[in-house]
């Protein structure tokens, strides 16, 4: 294609700075929401294991909402809906402290927690019932059995799904631009808008996303290999 020149973008210091800043923001959002999602997923799992129908119903409703509404729509509801219900003081404070990123992390993290908790739950279900029986027969309590016997196996079982969902969390961080976060896709559009070099910037973004995703997958692979139980299963 005539005039196709990705270097024109990369060599422009202004564009380079915008893209780098976007990438940095993408990492902040992705890592922040990952940590939130993982901690919340454990809480959700605990709630589902608790012998209370009501708590279980809450957890089920939580997962159901987050899995059945597009993430984009969830983010918008957080940013415009929930925030407007907060007391004024809190709103001002948030607006002074980068409310967009906070809500993006919150929205993405809460949404992903639903997926992570389901991954962990199926990981737990894949542990044979005999394992729990063996632990209980030895005299371990429910918590002990979970902590020393079931969870270490459940997490190993869930690793592939967790890695997959971590990749999609990373990719979904691009949705944060809908509520004004200047992350990578946002930066790409900004550069595109200034330069009108659509193909070049999209190529750069595609490569960056692909490389990062592949790196997460590779890290996951490494983790799985390290966590693999000697002798295989």
């Amino acid at each position: 294609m005539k005039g196709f020149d990705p270097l024109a973008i990369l060599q422009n210091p202004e564009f380079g700075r915008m893209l780098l800043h976007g990438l940095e923001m993408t990492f902040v959002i992705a890592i922040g929401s990952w940590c939130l999602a993982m901690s919340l997923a454990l809480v959700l799992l605990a709630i589902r294991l608790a012998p209370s129908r009501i708590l279980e119903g809450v957890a089920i409703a939580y997962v159901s909402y987050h899995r059945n509404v597009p993430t984009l729509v969830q983010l918008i509801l957080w940013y415009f809906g929930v925030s407007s219900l907060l007391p004024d003081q809190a709103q001002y404070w948030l607006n002074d402290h980068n409310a967009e990123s906070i809500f993006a992390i919150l929205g993405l993290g809460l949404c992903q927690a639903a997926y992570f908790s389901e991954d962990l739950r199926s990981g737990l279900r894949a542990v044979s019932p005999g394992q729990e029986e063996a632990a209980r027969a030895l005299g371990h309590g429910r918590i002990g059995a979970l902590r020393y016997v079931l969870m270490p196996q459940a997490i190993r079982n869930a690793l592939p799904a967790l890695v997959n969902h971590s990749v999609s969390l990373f990719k979904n961080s691009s949705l944060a631009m809908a509520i004004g976060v200047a992350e990578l896709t946002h930066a790409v559009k900004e550069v595109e808008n200034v330069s009108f070099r659509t193909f070049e910037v999209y190529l750069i973004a595609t490569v960056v996303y692909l490389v990062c995703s592949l790196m997460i997958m590779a890290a996951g692979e490494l983790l799985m290999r390290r966590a693999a139980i000697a002798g295989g299963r």
Partner: protein
Amino acid sequence: MTQSQPAQAGAPMITFSNVQKRYGAVPALIDINAEVARGEVVVVCGPSGSGKSTLIRTVNRLEEIQAGSIQFDGQEVHGSLRGKQLNRLRSRIGFVFQSFNLFPHLSALDNVMLSPIKINGASREAARATAMRLLDRVGLSNKIQSFPAQLSGGQQQRVAIARALAMEPPAMLFDEPTSALDPEMVGEVLAVMRSLASEGMTMMCVTHEMGFARDVADRVWFMDAGRILEAATPDEFFRNPQHERAKRFLADLRH
């Protein structure tokens, strides 16, 4: 560790009184009355689905019962026992499963050490010493660092026995410990069980190994359709079974 006060030496180790157990509407145990004395070895046999597994699983309350009572070492197992107390009781009943159920993410040594440390609060050193001794006893001192998946079935089952012994239980329950094993490995597991019996361990074994029953058992219980139809010495049972069903069962086993 506060040991629950043991009953006097003459009393039975396990007592079933009028035990009833249903799965939904299906009766699995009907009116079980029986005793296992201290140091006694009982072999439970009977056709598939007759309730053998259910019977021994009620002893450490892996299954609930609907009526009757079960006493272990003078202590009521069902009824009001809850939480910590139940865990303590269970830790005093060694249980060996047909499918080994070793913890696959732990080495043989860690499988044996885990429960003494986490439940009894033993120190790592003490637990390690005990585990080494027990693994040596079951003939696996050269496999302590292996993971379950790296061990043969017979070796896994021997680790499982060592794991149960690590809690120093006064009695051991076995649910078909050899039927998931290659024929050649059956011997090595039975050898360990024989040596346990010879040292006076109280044992209840569900097994189809009639050779073991003949040599080691003090009594054989024959179950069918949720009832104990015969409880006899091996000699009586094999030479002259009383029930039609028992005769047919023994004939089947010989093909």
